[in-house]
């Protein structure tokens, strides 16, 4: 009975069946996401320490960030998470063309996010609102405002790198989808990239209020 599934072409010989292969991939992916959460965790702890030490300065410095751009980027990233989930949903129903469409939309939203980030960064570089010794701006009262920008650039920079890597990964599965390598029976790589992409969204969900919305 099980022969029909266990010898499907996408199942590697060291797995008993397709389900075990899929579960293993998912377990590995979640362990990787755990390391990602802890990687960003270190930066969140740094944020906590410095904000507790300099509450006034954080409040003053956060006004240099543009809430509108941050909000638009949050909306863009949430929408891209929806399109990513829908692309997997379409593949589960064997609707390959819709999967391709939603993956392309996800890529476009990721690109929009980075373009907005680029404008924010270049504005700050122009004003000298930069980390550590590169900080030359004088318009923020309170001591050590450069610390806020060190944390801002470290956190959003690492997150931005994750967005770039996510775009590479989405392009990779888009290419494989175009080559008809996936179907309703086998779409694990799309699902794994989806998990990664949702985690990137989740991290931004915390970065946005912590950096842009200090009340």
């Amino acid at each position, binding site marked *: 009975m099980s022969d029909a599934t266990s010898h499907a072409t996408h199942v590697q010989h060291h797995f008993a069946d397709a389900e075990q292969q899929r579960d293993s991939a998912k377990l590995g992916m*979640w362990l990787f996401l755990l390391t990602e959460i802890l990687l960003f965790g270190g930066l969140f702890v740094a944020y906590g320490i410095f904000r507790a030490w300099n509450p006034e300065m954080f409040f003053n410095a956060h006004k240099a960030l543009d809430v509108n751009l941050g909000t638009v980027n949050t909306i863009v990233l949430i929408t891209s998470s929806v399109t990513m989930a*829908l692309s997997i949903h379409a593949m589960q129903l064997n609707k390959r063309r819709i999967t391709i469409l939603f993956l392309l939309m996800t890529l476009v939203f990721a690109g929009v996010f980075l373009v907005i980030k680029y404008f924010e960064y270049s504005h700050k570089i122009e004003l000298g609102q930069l980390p550590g010794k590169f900080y030359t701006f004088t318009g923020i009262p309170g001591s050590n405002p450069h610390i806020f920008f060190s944390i801002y650039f470290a956190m959003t920079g690492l997150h931005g790198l994750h967005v770039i890597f996510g775009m590479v990964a989405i392009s990779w599965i888009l290419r494989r989808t175009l080559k008809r390598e996936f179907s309703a029976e086998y779409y694990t790589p799309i699902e794994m990239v989806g998990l990664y992409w949702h985690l990137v969204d989740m991290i931004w*969900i915390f970065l946005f209020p912590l950096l842009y919305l200090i009340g």
Partner: protein
Amino acid sequence: MKEHSVHIIPAKIYIAVGLGLLILTAVTVAVSFVDLGPYNITIALFIASIKALLVAFFFMHLFWDNKIYFIIFAGSLLFLTIFLTLTMFDTETRGSIYEEKSAPIRSEAPIYQSK
């Protein structure tokens, strides 16, 4: 043959969760313009946590999947909490510990004795 364990979740659930996330984003932005003192950060983090759980449970399928993935996810959050809490206990209370430790030295050491 094993039962196929893949649930196909209706697309409208993804769209509903997406709309929920957008509404919560609007709420958190709106609340940030109201001065609530120390409650601003509490509310902001509370809303962000709800959003993160929506993403984890529905977009990342933890709600339907084998619980082992949820345990891994919760484990990372548990250790992050330990990391954050213990570090903050240290950095926030260091000053008073130094003061307490220096008290006997201050009362005994000749260098601190005023003439």
